[in-house]
């Protein structure tokens, strides 16, 4: 199976900072491996928009299964593993992150071995989830909890939220605080608010810098594409709460500003600017990136990569629980249809978008905004043309390369007035 170079998946001119990204990612995974072998160092598995800061504040090393399963997708190994999870009773229609990750575990294989030299995924001491993305994350972690006999805790977030109100925040804050005694016992460390405040602040700075990186794409031609961002978002996911992530995004932003000054485009001769709504199709990043690049079409922004912008982490001083609760409840995926529409229209304007590609991910209805009429409503509101691609985040069995590329080509021809 070809796993290729997971850091170089686009046709755009190489981003030099990628070297640093490789370095800090490798260090992160090596540290997790060392921690996994150290009985005194505790490891928490955490959902990617979960309570990471609280876990870090209590001394845990934090591992994110969603990062692992995105690698299974990118390396096109997912379809090797999904059947093993289906055989365990999980439907092929549910989250293919869940099925490919559990399948890989059952196969006793991981792409970390080839990418970072890890023998296996780091062993957890606790599993911490947040249902702000979906219920599947809880089911996913529950499987490991039973299989490995590891405690599981989490936050059941209010979902489909229109305006985030005080009662929503109060609920999440309470649940966050309820986690503390359990985590203190596992980590054998006492909770210190000052420490949590510091880590939330680092996460906030990371979020700010990541936003600045993404917003360099406001310039035409854009110095960065969605495809690049799918790779460079790694520190925002796994290293937020650390200075390393902040420094990395400072470096990346400087490089992108230099590109803008030199009129160096991510897509040479950029003609059209596209917004990507929905999950990436991880196993097709290279293919789609090349295809669109050849059509002088730059996918300049996405909801997905912007989902790690947590402006509210810095909303109040010395209120880390409230800030976390706000940031993680205001998440796009967790919101009402009308909130999502307003968010998207703002993004279309910010990035001067010509058209939208909606990804209807077969196994991720929660992060597919195509099933309740949104593309048509947005077209009517904004007169921005769009297409819907039927595919999946990891399960390539439901992806039709020819049909997808015909749709994209016809869409670009439409934008060009052919």
């Amino acid at each position, binding site marked *: 199976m070809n796993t290729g170079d997971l850091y170089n998946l686009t046709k755009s001119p190489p981003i030099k900072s990628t070297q640093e990204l490789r370095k800090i990612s490798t260090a992160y995974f090596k540290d997790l491996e060392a921690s996994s072998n150290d009985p005194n160092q505790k490891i928490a598995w955490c959902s990617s928009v979960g309570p990471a800061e609280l876990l870090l504040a209590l001394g845990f090393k934090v591992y994110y299964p969603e990062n692992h399963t995105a690698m299974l997708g990118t390396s096109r190994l997912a379809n090797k593993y999904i059947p093993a999870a289906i055989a365990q009773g999980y439907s092929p229609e549910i989250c293919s992150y869940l099925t490919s990750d559990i399948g890989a575990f059952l196969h006793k294989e991981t792409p970390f071995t080839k990418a970072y030299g890890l023998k296996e995924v780091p062993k957890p001491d606790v599993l911490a989830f947040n249902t702000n993305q979906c219920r599947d994350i809880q089911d996913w972690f529950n499987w490991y909890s039973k299989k490995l006999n590891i405690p599981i805790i989490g936050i059941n977030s209010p979902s489909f939220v229109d305006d985030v109100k005080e009662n929503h925040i109060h609920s999440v804050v309470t649940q966050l605080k309820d986690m503390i005694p359990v985590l203190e016992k596992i980590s054998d460390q006492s909770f210190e608010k000052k420490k949590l405040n510091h880590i939330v602040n680092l996460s906030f700075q990371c979020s700010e810098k990541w936003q600045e990186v993404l917003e360099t794409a406001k310039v035409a031609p854009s110095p960065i594409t969605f495809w690049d961002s799918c790779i460079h978002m790694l520190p925002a996911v796994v290293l937020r709460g650390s200075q390393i992530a902040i420094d990395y995004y400072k470096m990346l932003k400087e490089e992108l500003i230099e590109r803008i000054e030199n009129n160096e485009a991510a897509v040479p001769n950029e003609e059209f600017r596209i917004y990507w709504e929905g999950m990436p199709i991880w196993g097709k990043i290279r293919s789609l990136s090349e295809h669109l690049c050849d059509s002088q079409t730059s996918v300049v922004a996405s909801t997905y990569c912007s989902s790690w912008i947590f402006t509210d982490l810095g909303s109040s001083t010395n209120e880390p629980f409230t800030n976390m609760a706000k940031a993680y409840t205001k998440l796009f995926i967790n919101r009402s249809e009308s909130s999502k529409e307003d968010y998207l229209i703002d993004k279309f304007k910010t990035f001067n978008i010509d058209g939208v590609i909606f990804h209807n991910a077969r196994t991720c209805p929660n992060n597919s905004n195509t099933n309740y009429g949104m593309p048509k409503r947005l077209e009517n509101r904004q007169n921005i*043309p769009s297409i819907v691609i*039927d595919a999946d985040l990891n399960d390539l069995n439901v992806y039709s390369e020819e049909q997808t590329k*015909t749709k994209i080509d*016809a869409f670009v021809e439409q934008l060009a007035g*052919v």
Partner: protein
Amino acid sequence: MLDSILYAGIDIGSSYTKVVLIDQNNDIQGSNIDFSGIKLHSAAETSLKAALPKNTNLTAVKKIVTTGFGRKIPAINQIPFANITEISCSAKAAQLFYPNKTLTIIDIGGQDTKIISMRNGKRTNFKMNRKCAAGTGTFIEELALKLRIDLGEMNTLASKSTNPEKISSYCTVFAASEVLSRIRKGAKIEDMIYGAFYSIVNRVLEIDTINTDVVLTGGLIAYNPIIADIFKEVLGKSMLLPPSPQLFVALGAALYASQLK
């Protein structure tokens, strides 16, 4: 015809390759339809040669536009060419037959169905079926295969239906099983086949809303005009049928070829 200048549109579909040759006045000078098979380039070249008028050789063809599922083939005989999607080619052909009209093209192909919106002669939008054979020509092909009926007989049989049956299954494979099972229980074969065509129309109308005049194109329409009758019944309006629905996209490609620089 030795001195003629021709422009070729080659629509390489999943089932058939269609060629239309036009002259400088956009008049059709030749056409051909053949199986696409496995070697798409070879099918395109053979079909192109077969479409040539008598006493004309390939040197008369000055420009080519390929379209359809297999459009990205290499050049034929080093003739200048481009590839353009079947969606744009459909719209191009519609501009010739129905200039400046606001209308909807429904193109039912072998593996996918497209609904293309035109406003005042300009393409404004398009939708395609989801990755599923329901509502495409494959649905009827699979059914014919299962019933051991020649594909060409399906329209004749359906037109004999007096009490159309409704097929409940969405899935092509399950629908074929359902049809067989119900025939075994006494349903008339012609009523079930009519039901299958009805099912295609329903699947197509799920793709998008239609508020304008409708042009029907594609091979399935060409060989099964009963579909146009069903559309008329469901939508309550007459359908526009171009002279050769199966060659419609290839004609659009030929029109693009004539404009290639």
